[in-house]
């Protein structure tokens, strides 16, 4: 029975690979943009813009209590009420960006607060100010010290793309689900999906540990 399932699944491996490719593309685009957004949010959080920072803190706290699917629905169904029409994939990406940008900002802020004060004071003494201080002295150290937490967050991004199957984005889980219902091969289809997710996560983990080793060599 399982052999038969695997044969059928192999015939339709193209569908699964298409789904996996979309999952990878969604994860890379959403992951990279949420890292950038999180970085920008952190700079504002740590700046002297107190009022803006407290508004952002409220936004981050709200995201930390929100289920991702609920946010995806809010973006998907909510934004058209304000006259903003987007495709399924666009609204999915926007939801991923907002949600994980907030988590990344939270991680980076915690890392920034935990870093020794002396680094910053030495930079100030050498005349580094504002954005230059952040770009040259604080952020590079922050990226390396937060790399494991950020890597975990990127894995979370990959896993959250699976929710987009509910708003009809044809990604990996959706591809596997339609395969299993069309050809009645639940075992092969869903285990292949699980295997692809595992592969993507292993690649991320290896990437993070490689980056860390490289960074340690420069220190």
């Amino acid at each position: 029975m399982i052999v038969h399932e695997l044969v059928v699944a192999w015939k339709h491996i193209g569908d699964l690979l298409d789904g996996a490719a979309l999952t990878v593309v969604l994860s890379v685009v959403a992951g990279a943009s949420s890292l950038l957004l999180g970085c920008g949010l952190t700079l504002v959080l740590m700046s002297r813009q107190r009022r803006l920072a407290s508004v952002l803190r409220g936004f981050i706290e709200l995201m930390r209590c929100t289920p991702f699917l609920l946010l995806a629905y809010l973006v998907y169904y909510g934004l058209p009420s304000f006259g903003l029409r987007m495709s399924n994939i666009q609204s999915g990406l926007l939801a991923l960006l907002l949600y994980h940008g907030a988590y990344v900002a939270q991680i980076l802020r915690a890392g920034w607060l935990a870093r020794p004060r002396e680094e910053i004071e030495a930079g100030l003494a050498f005349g580094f100010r504002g954005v230059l201080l952040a770009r040259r002295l604080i952020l590079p150290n922050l990226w390396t010290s937060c790399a494991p937490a950020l890597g975990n967050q990127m894995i979370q991004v990959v896993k959250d793309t699976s929710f987009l199957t509910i708003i009809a984005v044809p990604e990996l889980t959706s591809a596997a689900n339609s395969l299993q219902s069309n050809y009645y091969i639940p075992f092969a289809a869903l285990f292949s999906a699980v295997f692809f997710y595992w592969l993507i996560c292993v690649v991320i983990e290896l990437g993070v540990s490689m980056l860390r080793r490289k960074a340690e060599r420069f220190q």
Partner: protein
Amino acid sequence: MNFTQWGLEPGPLLLGALVTLGLTAISIALGQVVGLGLALLRRQQWGLLSPLLAAYISVIRATPLLTLALAVFFITPALGYDISAPAAAILAMTINTSAFNCEIWRGGFAQFPRDQLDAAKAGGMGATLRLRRIVLPQVGRQVLPLLVNEMTILIKNSPAVAVIGIVELTRTAVRIGANTYRPLPPLIAALVLYILIIWLVVAAQRYLERHYKARLT
């Protein structure tokens, strides 16, 4: 107050919240037991058991809950066992959260100071007694915040079980919005309910922490 004029149906929404709360509460309770059990099993040196468990946990931790729910719901009947949607949801959530709980406990055990164990051994304590009296109370207190964090993550992932036909809080909100053609009010009401549920869990953690601290002094 007239909720329906705002596009809300408080009855179904509260029912959905109860479904979310019930399913996650059962899975959290089961996940604690299974997670701790897996972590204790991983400490044993029984041949292939430890690497097999490591592989299992690595795969489950990489699998989205939604995919896992589909897998449990469709593979179990194919293997010849009948499973209802709520049972499949609880099983999937338990498998998911217990893998993360196992890793949390494992991290706690790894950090436990070796000399305390040696002292207990020298005092004539057996392995089980050492675990129950020395290791678990201390490591448990240490990992409690992480376990609670994992509980809130499970609550935030719980809308995934809607995919196998469970009408929980998020799904209820979407349905109400589809009936009234005003999707935003029920979704925002659902968000408020989620915040309330998560806040309750975190408040329980604070209470437990204070309770343990009071017992220590």
